[in-house]
């Protein structure tokens, strides 16, 4: 985590009537980092983002945003992109940038110039004077992002920014997020698409049912999911099952031997099992290690609470 926190949540809970939507949530986001906020639908991601923005008051707990106790007090230092376009359909991107920039204290002329530069950098230079309603969803989403960033916010909050974008626009958005983080901004975004979080995030928080189920780096999250080791040779399943870190073994026959799919326990190191296999003299002809991805970790961590491993830092 780089530098002091841009965002601190301490035991934040939000209830709507009898329903607890966010339950005792705590995490910190370091300044200048890219932070992924992951979780299935209804996990409480949007409510948490709204509490950070100061639009919804927490039922209990404490939130600190850029040093302020309420996001509304630092709204001019925050850039927010909702899940959908969030721009007046009859405005052009330049008009929208001038309007939203002015609300954040940027001179309209400067806002227009910056928006034009950024849109041209994203390949949307020909659409700067086209009404938003006439743009494709991807183009409108990028225009909305440019408008959200026109005042150079210190904290950027993006709610499902990759939703509905084609791969080309997704790449463009990823580049923009990285560029902002390199320039010193803190980026917090929610997503369902683990590939983006895997490529972009320094840290991630996983929510399920309003509760935090993981908080750490992407690598730490991956290590919560079991890796898979494929072994081929004339191997005895019982001998493989006794190797260190092996959870279970699935056997299938091959010409001249067997193929064993070995599921490791969460956190187990594949090389330890392999070393033990070679030391034991097992006739391994071929091996292959499948490292768990964030997707597997997400499914495991947000699945049934009975299957959840102990969570570091939770």
């Amino acid at each position, binding site marked *: 985590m780089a530098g002091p926190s841009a965002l601190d949540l301490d035991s934040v809970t939000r209830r709507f009537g009898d329903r607890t939507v966010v339950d005792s949530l705590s995490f910190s986001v370091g300044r200048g980092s890219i932070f992924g906020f992951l979780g299935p639908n209804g996990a409480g991601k949007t409510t948490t983002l709204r509490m950070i*923005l100061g639009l919804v008051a927490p039922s209990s707990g404490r939130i600190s945003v850029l040093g302020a106790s309420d996001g509304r007090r630092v709204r001019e230092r925050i850039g927010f992109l909702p899940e959908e*376009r969030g721009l007046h359909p009859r405005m052009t991107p330049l008009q929208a940038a001038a309007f939203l920039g002015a609300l954040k204290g940027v001179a309209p002329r400067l806002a227009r110039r910056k928006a034009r530069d950024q849109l041209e950098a994203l390949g949307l230079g020909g659409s700067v004077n086209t009404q938003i309603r006439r743009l494709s969803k991807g183009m409108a989403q990028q225009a909305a992002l440019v408008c959200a960033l026109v005042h150079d916010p210190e904290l950027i909050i993006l709610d499902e920014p990759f939703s509905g974008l084609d791969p080309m626009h997704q790449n463009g958005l990823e580049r923009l997020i990285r560029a902002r983080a390199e320039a010193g901004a803190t980026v917090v975004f929610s997503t369902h698409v683990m590939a983006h979080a895997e490529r972009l995030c320094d840290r991630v928080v996983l929510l399920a049912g309003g509760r935090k189920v993981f908080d750490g780096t992407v690598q730490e999250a991956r290590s919560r999911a079991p890796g898979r080791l494929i072994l081929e040779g004339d191997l005895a399943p019982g001998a493989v099952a006794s190797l260190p870190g092996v959870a279970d073994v699935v056997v299938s026959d091959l010409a001249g031997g067997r193929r064993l799919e070995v599921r490791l326990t969460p956190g187990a190191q594949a090389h330890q099992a392999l070393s033990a296999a070679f030391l034991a003299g097992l006739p391994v002809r071929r091996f292959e290690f499948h490292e768990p991805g964030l997707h597997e970790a997400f499914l495991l961590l947000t699945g049934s609470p009975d299957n959840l491993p102990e969570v570091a830092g939770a």
Partner: protein
Amino acid sequence: MRRLLIILWREYLAYLLTPGFLVTLVTLPLVLVASLSLPALLSRQAPAPEVAVLDLTGLGSTGPGAYIEAQIREGRTRNLPQERAAILTETPAGVAGARTPEEAGRRIQDFYRGALPDASPPAVLVLSGTAESLDARLWTPRARLIDLSGELERALTDWSRQTRMRALGLDAGEIDALSRTGVEMSAYSPESRTGRITLTDRLPHLAALGVSYLLVSLILAGAGMVLTSVAEEKSSRVIEVLVTSAHPAELLLGKVLGLLCLFLTALGALTGAGVLAAGQLPPGIVLDVIRAVLSQGLLGWATLFLAFGFLLYGSIFAGLAAFCETPREAQSLATPLSLFLLIPLFLVISAIQTPESPVIRIAALFPPFTPFLMLLRIADGAPAWEVATGLVLMAATTAGAVWIGVQAYRTGALTQGSSNLWTLLRSRLKLRLRP
């Protein structure tokens, strides 16, 4: 304040620079003139009503039939000044032979039933009885609101009166002199410049009535525009970005005041056109009407009431619209409130006859109606305490409406899907109220 002005300016320009507004600005004076002159123009263009007279009294050339026919020929039978005079026509063939009014009625009905659907058969006046007890029945093909019965009744009353005077031995000159006898009443008031009340003295009241109607129309239209605007921002999720960029009060007031400025622009343009017209028009009723509107601070009061009415109803409509997912949903939700605004419209009509009635005086102090009715009370010379009370109550109610509107806007802006407005509002107001 800075953000409020930015939002106000955006809302103002968003409507001002549309072709629709410019077209409205140009056509509005034409529509106003047309609405005043069109009824008379249409009446003059309408075909003259045709009347046939069937006289069963047997009184011949001295009877009521001959008298009425002469009146119709001379063009003296018209109900309204702008209507064309009736034309005398032949009695329909199948009706002419009738001997009693009942038989005539049956034949006339058969005649009307046999007429083509798009034909305009004449009215038939059936006269029977004696000079002392005349029975007059006017048959018309359709039961319309206005017909010639009033004018024909007046003519027959004249005939009856003259016949009786002749029976008393009066000659034609005496009858004519007696028929012309009458008393002309003149109205006087210290409020009149000349003492005697003329149409010019009554014009300020008429102008206040017209401006009150205009206020109802403008406020209803403006509140509807606020409603649609907020609902569109909600459906396009713009509202989520806006509430992270400005306080809900700035958003709501900026929107309402932006539209108010738009309407004031239109009003200013109309006033300018009126001032220009006043400098060009020859003396006459149109010039007097324009002067009445421009004089006595009427426009100043109208502007004040327009502003309060806009804030009052605009805030409520904006709060309602924030709970709706689509403009259509918002419009159906606001329909009961729009119907509520018809009440002051009816009160304005009765206020023109009795502006000092207790009902009107109380209604003018009822804050939701004050913007529409107090203008009429002021034109009628309401005491200062009454005007001041109305203004204070209206200002307090408007402030309350804005506050409620802001809370509803803030809560509704972040609500998605079908929602119970009252539950959400109550939870917002009572449980999680934030400064």
